[in-house]
C-alpha cells in the first residue's frame, strides 16, 4: 500500500529534485505515534507524543540532552518495547548510530551484509558500498577505517536493506567539520536515490535546517515546535535560513546574538569562530 506512493514521490523528486515533498495529510504516514508514552520508573521520558512522518519525508528532531530524542529513536527502531501503544512504523527500518557500531571481527562488506539472507549478498553489499564511495574498502577490517569511512559503511549497511524508515542518531556528531559537510551531501543524495522516510536526531540546528523537510523540537518528551523548511536544496545560509534558525533557537531556549550570525553563516556546522 505504501510502495506505489514511494515510487510516485521518487518520480516527482527526479523531475524536481530540490523541492521538498509536501506532507499532504491524505498520504498514509510511514510513521505514526498517537499520545505515545515511555516511562522509566517515575521519569516520563516521552509524554503523550504525537508524531507523523510521510513516506519519503526527511524529518529532523532537535532537542537538548535528556529531551527524549534517543528514546524516541529507539522506539521507532524497535529496540524498546512499546507495549500495546499505537505505534505505526514501516516493516523495514534501519539505524545509523552516532558510533558506527561495526562488528570489528567482520570485514567491511560482511558488516554491510549483516543479517541479509539472499544469495547475492556480496553483490548487494558491494553495490551499497560503492554508492557511499567505499568500493575499494570491501575487504578492509573496520578498525582500519577512518571515522568518516566507518559512518559511510554504517550508512551503506542501513541502505542495503532498502528501509522504509531510516533512523539517523546523531550520525555526524563525532566527525570533523569537513567530513560532516561531505556526509550531509552524501545523505541527501542517498535519500534522493532511495526515498526512505528519514528521522534525523541531532543537536545541530544548522544541520537540521540544511537537510530536513521539517524540523521538530522535542522538549520534555513532547513536540514543542515544528518548522517546515520550504527552502530549495542545496540550502545557502541566506536570510530565510537565518530566520528559521533564529526561530528554532528560540524554541530551544537559546537567544542567537545578532553579532555572531556572520560567523555562524561562514561555519554552518555550528563552529562559531570569530
Amino acid at each position, binding site marked *: 500500500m505504501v510502495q506505489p506512493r514511494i515510487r510516485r514521490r521518487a518520480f516527482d523528486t527526479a523531475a524536481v529534485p530540490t523541492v521538498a515533498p509536501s506532507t499532504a495529510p491524505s498520504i498514509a504516514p510511514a510513521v505514526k505515534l498517537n499520545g505515545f508514552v515511555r516511562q522509566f520508573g517515575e521519569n516520563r521520558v516521552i509524554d503523550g507524543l504525537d508524531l507523523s512522518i510521510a513516506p519519503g519525508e526527511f524529518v529532523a528532531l532537535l532537542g537538548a540532552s535528556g529531551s527524549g530524542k534517543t528514546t524516541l529513536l529507539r522506539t521507532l*527502531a*524497535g*529496540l524498546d518495547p512499546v507495549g500495546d501503544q499505537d505505534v505505526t512504523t514501516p516493516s523495514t*527500518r*534501519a*539505524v545509523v*548510530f552516532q*558510533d558506527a*557500531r561495526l*562488528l*570489528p*571481527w*567482520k*570485514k567491511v562488506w560482511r558488516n554491510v551484509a*549483516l*543479517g541479509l539472507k539472499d544469495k547475492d549478498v556480496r553483490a548487494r553489499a558491494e553495490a551499497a558500498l560503492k554508492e557511499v564511495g567505499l568500493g575499494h574498502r570491501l575487504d578492509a*577490517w*573496520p*578498525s*582500519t577505517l577512518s571515522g568518516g569511512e566507518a559512518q559511510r559503511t554504517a550508512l551503506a*549497511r542501513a541502505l542495503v*536493506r532498502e528501509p522504509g524508515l531510516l533512523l539517523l542518531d546523531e550520525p555526524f556528531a563525532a566527525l570533523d567539520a569537513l567530513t560532516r559537510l561531505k556526509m550531509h551531501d552524501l545523505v541527501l543524495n542517498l535519500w534522493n536515490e532511495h526515498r526512505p522516510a528519514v528521522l534525523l536526531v541531532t543537536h545541530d540546528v544548522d544541520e537540521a535546517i540544511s537537510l530536513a523537510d521539517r524540523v521538530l523540537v522535542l522538549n520534555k518528551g513532547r513536540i514543542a515546535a515544528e518548522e517546515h523548511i520550504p527552502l530549495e536544496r542545496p540550502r545557502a545560509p541566506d536570510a530565510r535560513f537565518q530566520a528559521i534558525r533564529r526561530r528554532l533557537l528560540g524554541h530551544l531556549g537559546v537567544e542567537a546574538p545578532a553579532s555572531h550570525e556572520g560567523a555562524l553563516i561562514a561555519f554552518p556546522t555550528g563552529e562559531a569562530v570569530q
Partner: protein
Amino acid sequence: MSLATADRISLARPFPKGWRWPRLSRARWLSPVVLLALWELGSRFGLIPERVLAAPSTVAETFWALTVSGELPANLLVSLARAAAGLAIALAVAVSLGLLAGLSRWGETVVDPLMQIKRTIPSLALTPLFIVWFGIGETPKIALIAVATTFPIYLNLFAGVRGIDVRLVEAARSFGLSGWSLVREVILPGALPSFFVGLRYALGVSVLVLVVAEQINAQAGLGHLINNARDFMRTDIIVVCLLVYALLGLGADALVRTLERRALAWRPSLVEQ
C-alpha cells in the same frame, strides 16, 4: 695520529673497538648454556653421579635412542591422546556451560555457583575418588584432565560473553539478528579473545594434570616411561621425559598463538603487523 686514536678509544669506551661485551649483555641464551656446560663438566669429572643426574650428553644420546627405537614417540602419542580426549570433553562442557551462564540470568544462577564450588576443590585432590569410581584404566586419567581444564575455559568464556559491547548487540538486533544468529555472528566472535586466554591456560593445566594422572598405574605414556626409569634409576630417561613435557607446554602455547592469529586477525594490534 696514533695518539689521537688512542685518546679517542680511552675516552669513548673502556674497551677497544670490536670488544663483544655490549652484545653479550643482551644474550639471554648465555646463562642456560653456561649452566649446561657446568652440568656437563660436573658429570664428566664425577662431581654429579650418574644416578643423581645424567650428563646432558647422555640425555641427548638417550633422547635420540628412544626416538629412533620408537619408544618415545609411541608413549608420547598415548599421552597426547589422553590430553586431547580430556580437553575435548572439557571444551564441550565448558563452552556449553559458559554460554548457558553467559547468555541467561537463570543460567548464571544455576551454573555459576556450582562452577565456583568446583573451583575451590583442587582437581588433583579428586584423584583418589576418581580411582574408586573409574578404576585404574584410561577413564580416571582422562576424567582428571577434563575436570581440571573445564574451569579456565568456562570462566573466561563466561567473562567474554558478559563483556560484549552491548551497543554492538543492539545494532545487530536492529538489523534483524536474534537468537542463534546473534550468538553466532556477534556474541561468540566478541567472546573469542577471552576464550583463547582460557584455552591457553587450559592447555597448560592439561600437561600438568597429565603428569600426575599418568602416575596412576599407566601401562603406556610419558608417565609410564618416567615410572619405569625411576625403578631402574635411569635419570637420563627421566630428564628426557621432563624435556618432552616442557616441549609439550611450548607446543601447546604455539598452537593457541597460531589459532589466535588466524581467528583474531581483525584486532588492531595484529592488523598493523
